[in-house]
């Protein structure tokens, strides 16, 4: 390999030093972005090393695991718990369909937790195999950047390994953070929430983002009392306001106590549980308090400042459009860059990185029309612009099409919960700028819609598509009448 590299390098560049690198690429962090970048780079012929902290469901400075947040402490275990929790209401709905069930259904939290852990251990193994099959060398330990082309891995036994690499990729992700309030050590983050010994009886969730909403749904679905506190009037800041109201209403209807515009000020341990005090002076007793108040990039212990890799004020690694940091040989992808913190985006960034650096094809990740989902119960999924964003960005009028309906399943089950769908359209070009849905199967439904939006589909093209009957999704192609037309402020409509 060394000889081959020498030859390659001689052909490309004359810098003799390049020949001595141990690796073409060394990746710090084997989560979604890091594994993708490592594998694809190896497939392009690069010699790749990757380091990752030892496996554990709960992360810390020194614990992680191949697979990263998504597989071990995020998307996958979360979705498993959502599946488990969704059965609660599903089974209730069975009664009106003629099924005779016990008054109270038994649920075994430990069994679900155990099976969840088995599954993430299995996936952790699959990820390791993916790396070894691609020829990527995996090191277990904490990675640190020592120089622009030098990394150091501290292994479990304390021994340090040092490697040189032509390129270094930082893909260390992020971790949940706790608000600085008295008693914060009594609370937990999403890491612990995915591995609780017992199902909470009364949970308090602080935060209005998707993580807060998802855990509130999980615990409520499994029978816990849940109080959800958030700063704004509605949860899910950044999403379409109308859809935020839909989610809030659904959560409330399913029995979650919403406390908008309320913050927690103190946690105190008592004999009955954790006493939670709010800035409105309320007091509650809970057995679990979850902080879902945001995540911070894992950039602290990487020695970045010393080598000159710049961070922004949130601690995220600053990168250019190709994911290159302020040091040309050091790159970064995924949550540590705090661009759009989603697994598929980290995958896209990792793929583009490998193409750019080893595929001789400079590629920028494209952040337009990235769809996403909130796995609340029922879920929300969106792609493109919210109504508010569309109004802000549009040159002309914006047309809004909405549909609020009782899903067919509810007609017999009697469940009182509407599904809401929305399309936001540019009046002038007829392009669909945004789509949202809150209701069963929304994330599955939205994926195909995302393909259409990504490619600039018009409302006329939606309309010309025949529906699949009876489905919820068909509503997206049968919204014929506009709900409202918004004339954008300050922009001339006519040339009078």
């Amino acid at each position: 390999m060394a000889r081959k590299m020498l030859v390659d390098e001689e052909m490309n560049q004359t810098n003799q030093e390049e020949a001595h690198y141990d690796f073409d690429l060394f990746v710090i962090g084997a989560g979604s972005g890091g594994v993708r970048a490592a594998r694809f780079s190896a497939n392009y012929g690069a010699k790749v090393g990757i380091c990752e902290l030892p496996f554990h469901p709960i992360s810390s400075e020194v614990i992680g695991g191949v697979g990263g947040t998504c597989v071990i402490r995020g998307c996958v275990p979360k979705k498993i718990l959502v599946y488990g929790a969704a059965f609660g209401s599903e089974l209730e709905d069975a009664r009106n369909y003629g099924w005779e069930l016990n008054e109270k259904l038994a649920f075994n939290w430990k069994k679900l937790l155990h099976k969840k852990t088995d599954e993430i251990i299995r996936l952790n193994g699959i990820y390791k195999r993916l790396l070894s099959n691609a020829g990527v060398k995996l090191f277990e330990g904490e990675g640190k950047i020592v120089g622009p082309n030098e990394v150091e891995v501290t292994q479990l036994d304390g021994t340090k390994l040092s490697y040189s690499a032509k390129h270094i990729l930082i893909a260390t992700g992020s971790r949940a953070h706790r608000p600085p309030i008295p008693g914060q050590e009594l609370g937990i983050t999403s890491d612990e929430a995915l591995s609780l010994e017992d199902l909470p009886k009364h949970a308090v969730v602080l935060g209005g983002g998707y993580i807060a909403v998802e855990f509130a749904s999980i615990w409520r679905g499994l029978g816990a009392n849940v109080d959800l506190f958030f700063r704004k009037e509605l949860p899910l800041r950044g999403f379409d306001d109308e859809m935020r109201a839909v989610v809030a209403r659904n959560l409330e209807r399913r029995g979650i106590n919403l406390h908008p515009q309320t913050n927690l000020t103190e946690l105190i341990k008592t004999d009955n549980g954790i006493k939670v005090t709010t800035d409105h002076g309320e007091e509650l007793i809970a057995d679990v308090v979850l902080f879902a108040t945001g995540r911070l990039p894992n950039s602290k212990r990487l020695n970045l400042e010393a080598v000159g890799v710049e961070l922004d004020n949130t601690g995220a690694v600053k990168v250019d459009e190709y994911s290159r940091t302020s040091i040309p040989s050091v790159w970064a992808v995924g949550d540590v860059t705090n661009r759009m913190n989603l697994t598929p985006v980290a995958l896209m960034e990792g793929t583009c990185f490998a193409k750019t650096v080893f595929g001789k094809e400079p590629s920028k990740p494209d952040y337009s029309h990235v769809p996403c989902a909130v796995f609340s119960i029922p879920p929300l999924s969106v792609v493109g612009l919210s109504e508010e964003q569309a109004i802000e960005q549009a040159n002309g009028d914006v047309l809004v099409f909405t549909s609020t309906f009782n899903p067919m399943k509810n007609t017999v089950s009697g469940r009182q919960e509407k599904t809401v769908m929305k399309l936001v359209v540019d009046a002038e070009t007829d392009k669909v700028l945004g789509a949202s849905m809150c209701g069963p199967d929304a994330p599955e439904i939205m994926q195909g819609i995302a393909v259409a939006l990504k490619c600039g589909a018009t409302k006329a093209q939606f309309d010309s598509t025949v529906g699949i009957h009876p489905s919820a999704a068909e509503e997206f192609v049968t919204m014929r009448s506009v709900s409202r037309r918004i004339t954008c402020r300050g922009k001339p409509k006519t040339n009078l």
Partner: protein
Amino acid sequence: MATTSFTAPKLSSPTFQTLCRNFPLSLPIPKTLSSFSFHLSPFLSRFHLHHHHYHPPRFHPRRLFAVRAESENGAEPIRHYDFDLFTIGAGSGGVRASRFAANFGASVAVCELPFSTISSETTGGVGGTCVLRGCVPKKLMVYASKYSHEFDESNGFGWKYDTEPKHDWSTLMANKNAELQRLTGIYKNILNKAGVTLIEGRGKIVDPHTVDVDGKLYTASNILISVGGRPFIPDIPGREYAIDSDAALDLPSKPEKVAIVGGGYIALEFAGIFNGLTSEVHVFIRQKRVLRGFDEEIRDFVGEQMALRGIQFHTEESPQAIVKSADGSLSLKTNKGTIEGFSHIMFATGRRPNTKNLGLESVGVKINKNGAIEVDEYSRTTVPSIWAVGDVTDRINLTPVALMEGAALAKTLFQNEPTKPDYRAVPSAVFSQPPIGQVGLTEEQAIKEYGDIDVYTANFRPLKATLSGLPDRVFMKLIVCAKTNKVIGLHMCGEDSAEIAQGFAVAVKAGLTKADFDATVGIHPTSAEEFVTMRSPTRKIRQSSESQGNMGHEAKTAAGV
């Protein structure tokens, strides 16, 4: 559609919500013409009488003008008609055409047989097959039957049942029928609100402009036939003991052991329904595989998955006779032997257009050999003033297609905008368990039409199944034209397939390429994201021998599955 405001949810009545659900196309509540003008612009004068290069049937508001009947021969005596449009049959296509025509300003009547869950020469009901004997009750039964699988799944997620859940058949039937009654009422309301005159009775065509409903004559400038289809049971000894899908949707008690004859979508859907509701299910199919006409790999996959859930398939086995035993049980005699002990034998052996006793032959409306009414691209029959939409024309027998045909006809007739229904890339679903969703061409059709194609497949165990421990899998397939990179076919079998396929249908209909799919970021973790993350073709099929020998390096398996 009127805005259903979220800030004031209590203002929208449940009925109204369901209207939104079931009649997404322009509720009749804002009945002004302007509510249509946005999409159907430029909105032409509804009294537009000018000639067009295509001879649109002219709309003449009877109250304002004495009009000339449309005729190939030119001059006919001036006539006054009772209605601008008389529709026979108030199912999906008929209601859609009637409502839209009325909204465009036409005076419209529609006749329909009295309501019954079982259709016959004398019974039907407003709403038609879809609402009363098809899509809706079928899907409700699918929901009910899916629970047994969900109980099994939930075990893997920590849920426990002290006693095995039992199903009470009569509760389901009562709740289902209450819903159907509600829907037929809503349909009547919708017609009423659109200003369409509803006449209960059997319509029969007397002459090109006259319909007889139980002895009363109505004249109309145009007549629309939208009488749908009905299940067909072949003439074998003992056929009187067999039931069809109408009856199967409304059985008084649970069938203990049921034979289903047929391999089409109706057979598979009912097999799933009865299996889920804990009947013993045997499916008899003439061919080796189910779902003739579907993609071959989907046919294999769905058959395997259904068998795993306990359905017994009897392939290449055709029914010859049904015998009733002394104990009341039924035996099915086939070319391979006799199977005994059935409580019910259901035939899902096709449907036939309801074209008998409509007076069609006497006025000269041509019928093809299957009994379907022959129509041109505008849904016009061989008699210029008579039109037909929906299953009675046996084009693509799906509710949304009948809706499209009905809407196109209303535009053609009453908006001076000749409109052909567009049958390209019509998506469809089979609500088997697991369900199928698809749009575009099958692999076999694609090879025939395009020659060189790339096929991408994924066959995986979904996240839910890894926890439940059940053998459920998902199969997905993309078919791409090698020359243009366009996605020309998309198929899926597995949970949520029907919902997933809809959005992709927009993309396929819009002619998007594989590169467009690849450029789309996935939604994680979903099943659907697999459709935008298929990187390597499973096989490349090339017509020329040269490229056949030059298979892509990425191909996982050889062609010829």
